[in-house]
């Protein structure tokens, strides 16, 4: 009767007829998904009790995972203690349940994970899940084992997934420290909206922002120097006062993308890759760096002929996905090794949830450097797509004073909205004025 308070809850029952293969893998993955779910709830501001994960695991073990509604009710009873949190819970539960379903569907012989943002091994338990998956499942055929062990590729639409023998996958993540191999799915399988029009709108909006260079203008400030020069021709009499203003410019940019697991949980990877590719195409120059616990420049990879080719390039570059967030470290590395990536013409887009796990003073120093050096710094935060979001985490609080705008980033509509906000220069900009909150 007394609840089991040990670290490992009872294996989740999978219902009748499921006992044909070892359930360790599935159980571990479900448990991993649950831990991540609880973490996501906390991040979203839900008041989860300190031992919420344990009680949730016990609850799930008690009701099983055969019935979504029952599992939802059980977890709600264990994890939610305020009515106002129910909506957030329900929203995040859907994602959790998708992972659970995938874990169940992805049992022996099956590598058919269908979600682009799949992958359960974001935390310690998840790492175990991958290890289990690679070593413990005697029901996997040789090919399947190889397929699993080569880790899930970020995408390969053209080549068949099961028999290409591609062992070069380097998609990796871990919350901190060494990266771990993970599985991902092909890009082409999901119906992500084409972000190209949205990126173009954003590009136009950024390009229309006044740059640092000044030029003749009808409604600018008096150009005293030019006026003085002209007085030479009129004997010292000022006939007219020319004006000058900052000129719109082609967009030169630096894109820093946090590919830590917490971001990948909220942003569709396909959407992310397509946006990055389009930015690289549309901007005059754009250098892109991926970072989690390490930094990798992927500018060249984004110019590849197709998204899948880009992923293959990522693969070749051993770009790591899904680690922890060390923004300060990344900025320091860029400042030390690629300081020419930022100059006073550069617009910086920083895609991150701001959940910094590194040294905050380093983040502060890095943001100060960016702010001082770049033309504009825009922070795109996937978590701001939630209307309940407030930038109260330590990383965001540190970075916010150095940012020209904090926006949501989850779908093309967000990019359109950033463009809309930037076009209205007199109005305040930011996530709090976006379409989700103002219904514009």
């Amino acid at each position, binding site marked *: 009767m007394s*609840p089991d308070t040990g670290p490992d809850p009872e294996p989740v029952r999978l219902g009748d007829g499921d006992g044909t293969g070892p359930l360790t893998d599935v159980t571990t993955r479900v448990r991993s998904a649950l831990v991540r779910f609880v973490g996501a709830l906390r991040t979203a501001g839900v008041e989860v009790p300190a031992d919420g994960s344990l*009680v949730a695991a016990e609850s799930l073990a*008690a*009701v099983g995972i055969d019935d979504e*509604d*029952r599992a939802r009710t*059980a977890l709600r*009873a264990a994890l939610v*203690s305020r*009515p106002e949190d129910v909506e957030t819970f329900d929203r995040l539960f859907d994602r959790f349940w998708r992972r659970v379903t995938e874990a169940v569907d992805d049992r022996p012989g099956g590598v058919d994970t269908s979600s682009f943002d799949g992958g359960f091994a974001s935390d310690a338990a998840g790492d175990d899940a991958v290890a289990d998956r690679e070593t413990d499942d005697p029901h996997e055929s040789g090919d399947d084992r190889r397929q699993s062990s080569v880790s899930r590729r970020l995408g390969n639409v053209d080549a068949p997934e099961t028999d290409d023998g591609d062992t070069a996958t380097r998609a990796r993540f871990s919350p901190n420290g060494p990266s771990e191999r993970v599985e991902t799915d092909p890009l082409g399988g999901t119906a992500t909206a084409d972000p190209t029009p949205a990126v173009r709108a954003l590009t136009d909006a950024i390009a229309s922002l006044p740059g640092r260079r000044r030029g003749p203008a009808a409604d600018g400030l008096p150009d005293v120097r030019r006026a003085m020069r002209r007085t030479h021709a009129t004997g010292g009499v000022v006939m007219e006062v020319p004006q000058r203003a900052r000129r719109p410019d082609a967009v030169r940019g630096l894109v820093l993308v946090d590919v830590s697991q917490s971001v990948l949980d909220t942003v569709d990877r396909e959407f992310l890759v397509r946006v990055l590719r389009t930015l690289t195409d549309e901007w005059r120059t754009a250098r892109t760096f991926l970072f989690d616990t390490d930094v990798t420049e992927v500018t060249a990879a984004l110019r590849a002929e197709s998204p899948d080719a880009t992923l293959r390039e990522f693969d070749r570059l051993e770009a790591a996905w899904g680690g922890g967030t060390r923004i300060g470290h990344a900025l320091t590395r860029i400042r030390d090794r690629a300081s020419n990536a930022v100059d006073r013409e550069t617009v910086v887009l920083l895609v991150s949830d701001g959940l910094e796990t590194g040294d905050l003073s380093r983040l502060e120093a890095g943001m100060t450097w960016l702010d001082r050096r770049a033309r504009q710094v825009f922070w795109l935060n996937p978590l701001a797509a939630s209307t309940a979001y407030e930038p109260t985490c330590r990383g965001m609080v540190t970075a916010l004073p150095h940012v020209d705008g904090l926006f949501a980033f989850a779908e093309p509509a967000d990019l359109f909205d950033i463009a809309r906000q930037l076009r209205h220069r007199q109005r305040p900009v930011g996530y709090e004025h976006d379409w989700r909150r103002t219904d514009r």
Partner: protein
Amino acid sequence: MTDDIHDDFETLTNERLQSLFDASDYVAEDEITTTVLLALKLGRPLLVEGEPGAGKTELAKVLAEGFDTDLIRLQCYEGLAAESALYEWNYTKQLLAVQSGRDDDEGSVFTEEYLLERPLLRALRHDGERPPVLLIDEVDRADEEFEALLLEVLSDFQVSIPELGTVATDTTPIVVITSNRTRGLSDALKRRCLYLHVEPPSFEKERAIVRRKVPELDDAVVAAVCGITERLREESLLKPPGVAETLDWARALTVLDGAPADDTIPADDGTDTPEDRPLTETDIRTTLGCLLKEAEDVERIDDETMSALLTAAETARQ
């Protein structure tokens, strides 16, 4: 026997629990059934929150009835202290014992004989065959100090009595804690409980409840009653009617059914039985006190609102 009932909980299913609720005429959705089942299986207290009259207290009563066990109720109020909730010494008896010299025989007046059990201790020392249902009602009315007292009880299901020692339970009681959310509860208390928020019932659920609880009322009238209360809840009232108020009203209408309040309403074609005739404005006005418990709310029901209520009733009947 303890193990028996706990074994019962282990093997208890949603369907079994649902049938138990059905037998007690308690209309419970899957969400309620699953959460209660979970609380029983995990042996955790169940914290039930919701609007007044949503059936929170009834849930505990139904569980006690369904499991054929005792219901031990602790009604919370501001200033509730340990001696009213846990135990106190029978001072009068102690005094008499001391005066009569009996204490010399016994050695102490702090023994079981002089102990007055209050609900929490009674639940822990319950010696029935089945664990009792401990209902801690409206815990939000009690002070935060009382919550701290509850923590010890709910964590280990034991209580320390300095003069006697620690009293632990053999049969973990089924604990149901209700709150009307007049204030937030401490995290420590919430952490020890499973949480259930009872939503205001939908039209269909409320209709089913009224049908069960007031079976003598005609179906069409039940629909009209539920239609009107549903419409009333859309108004900005100080105290919107809960299910309890709906049931009160339904029963009031049943009582008045034999003597229609509005004698001026003719039977259109002479075929309407009293059950068939629609609710009239007079019916509603004369029984509004069952639904609305605030004078301002009653005043708020002007002709326009009344007309909307009648329309809602008619729509529901159809």
